[in-house]
């Protein structure tokens, strides 16, 4: 019993962070499926989501409006980014496109610094700040929001990919772009859609954690890296893998902080990534390719 109380607290903390990593990992996965590139600007979408929501809330203090407005805005940024930075490339080899996304990330971060400055901003929690007691541990209502909305997003995405025509078309592009083109699927449109979708997911993640972590212009880089690690750990391109990767990573970090030392938190995350790459390069869920 002695060790149980902190363990539960670590799990809550780990699952909340893990859910955020999962949302970011899903964004990586969707774009990877459509284009086989890694979009390193994904973390910046998280930052934009948080800061846009904070700004909208500042003008019109309504959380649903801030949430919706920020998601729409950031989705547009994702679409414009694809249209202006990636589509015009003459020789779209994956490595060239990946490097462009790195550049895009730096640009977005820089612009955000000019718009919002270097200070952190707070967003009020969605429903109160009073911790809920869960046995020996405590959980904030915001943690529940994070877990809940992540779960809903994952289910909705899964349904979208399995049940709708557009979703099926996107999956077809992922399996074989040329074959998809031959049956009349507009592959370019699907790529654009994937950027919009993953930007929306990133923005959602950013808004969800803004009340917990505050929003600041340089928050995206580290979150992006963690999300990327989660995607790799789970298996790039697999929805279930992204979620599993995110949760495993979040919980591993929290347990490492709690039971080993807080100095090793990030080390554990990246050690886990290396281990997976050595032992199971296709990821926990990914099949052999």
């Amino acid at each position, binding site marked *: 019993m002695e060790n149980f109380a902190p363990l539960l607290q670590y799990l809550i903390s780990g699952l909340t*962070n893990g859910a955020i990593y999962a949302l970011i990992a899903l964004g990586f996965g969707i774009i990877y499926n459509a284009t086989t590139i890694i979009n390193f600007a994904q973390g910046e979408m998280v930052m934009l989501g948080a800061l846009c929501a904070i700004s909208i809330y500042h003008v019109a203090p309504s959380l649903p409006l801030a949430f919706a407005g920020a998601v729409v805005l950031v989705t547009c940024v994702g679409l414009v980014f694809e249209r202006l930075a990636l589509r015009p490339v003459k020789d779209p080899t994956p490595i060239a496109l990946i490097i462009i996304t790195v550049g895009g990330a730096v640009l977005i971060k820089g612009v955000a610094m000019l718009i919002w400055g270097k200070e952190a901003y707070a967003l009020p929690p969605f429903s109160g*700040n009073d911790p809920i007691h869960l046995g020996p541990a405590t959980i904030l209502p915001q943690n529940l929001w994070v877990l809940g909305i992540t779960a809903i997003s994952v289910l909705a995405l899964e349904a979208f990919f399995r049940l709708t025509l557009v979703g099926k078309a996107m999956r077809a592009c992922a399996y074989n772009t040329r074959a998809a083109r031959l049956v009349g699927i507009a592959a370019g449109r699907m790529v654009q859609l994937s950027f919009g979708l993953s930007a929306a997911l990133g923005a959602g993640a950013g808004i969800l954690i803004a009340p*917990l972590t505050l929003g600041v212009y*340089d928050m995206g880089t580290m979150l992006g890296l963690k999300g990327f690690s989660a995607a790799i750990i789970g298996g790039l391109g697999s929805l279930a893998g992204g979620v599993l990767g995110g949760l495993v990573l979040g919980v591993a970090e929290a347990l490492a902080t709690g039971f080993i030392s*807080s100095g090793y938190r990030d080390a554990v995350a990246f050690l886990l990534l290396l281990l997976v790459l050595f032992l199971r390069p296709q990821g926990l869920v990914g099949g052999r390719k």
Partner: protein
Amino acid sequence: MKTKAILGGLILALVGLGLIFLGCGDAKKTAPYVVGGIFSISGPASYLGEPERNSLEMVIGEVNAKGGINGHPIKLTIYDDEGDVTKARLHATKLAQDKNCLAVIGPSLTHTSMTTLEITQKAKLPLISCAAGSAITAPAKDRVWVFKTAQTDKMAVERIYQYLQKTNLKQVAILTVSTGFGVAGKEQLLSQASQYGIQVVAQEVFGEKDTDMTPQLTKLRGSTAQAVICWGTGPAPALVAKNMKQLGITIPLVQSHGVASKKFIELAGDAGDGIILPAGKLVIWQQLPDTDPQKAVCKEYAEKYHAKFKAPESSFGGYAYDAVRMLNQALTKAGNNRDKIRSELEGLKNFVGISGIFNMSPEDHNGLSPAAFVMVKIEKGEFKLID
């Protein structure tokens, strides 16, 4: 032919101009005093560099409007190091090579100050740093030409431990950020604890960009600590406060002087209430008793800064404000002799500044005591003087 004639004419004109300038009265007497400034005006530490530059320009503007020092106007040469060591070094070299430069104020950060002082020491150029690290001026016998106006970590820790001793809290847990600021703070917290009969029962660290400190705090909750001391800057310490509230930890939270700003109160929100921290007197100058000699200085600075820049005053700007006022006093007595300026700075006694009352000596080129800090408590979104 024509071009040659024009060239000839130009040369003649230039020579003529030069002669006119030479003949211009007693040039030596009214030649401007050159003072250098290196601050992190842009980049991640711009929150330090900007108010520092503003304060320096504000004071020099006033001095020049009144006719300068002993009739000499002051010419400022200000550089921006962007918080970058290489750039700081470059700017320091430029200033050191300028024969007319009499002293340098800045840089804003400990690491940029450390590289700058290497150059200014060699050039025998007085430097008044605005950074916190105690290594900048210690040991003073190796730092003959270096002074600083910011309080050190050591004093902040002394002040916190004095307070804890008074309130009879003996066991503390410390939670420090993994950057230079946190590492230096942790060193002081650990090394001074025993002098005050305080026991550090748990120590944890967090990353500057970490977003969740509940695991660390859960661990601290399991210890016998009677207070938590958090050492960090930026948004992370505010998250520590929020996470403590979430976990229902009710023992007092003590923060460092690194969060003594309105912004912190805003970020921490409700969770900020009850936090105790050491702060420079500028933060609560209205609450100081009228007998406090620093009250008038703080009041004057705060009001002038508000009026000129339409922005709230900050302790950081205060470092440069103190530095330039000290320098003006030295220049008034020593004139344009670097060696004499240095001696004047070293001999400075009972100088009432924003950051404290300075008493420089050959052994101490900071000249402040722990009394430069007051302990404040956050109550209903305001800093309140408690000790």
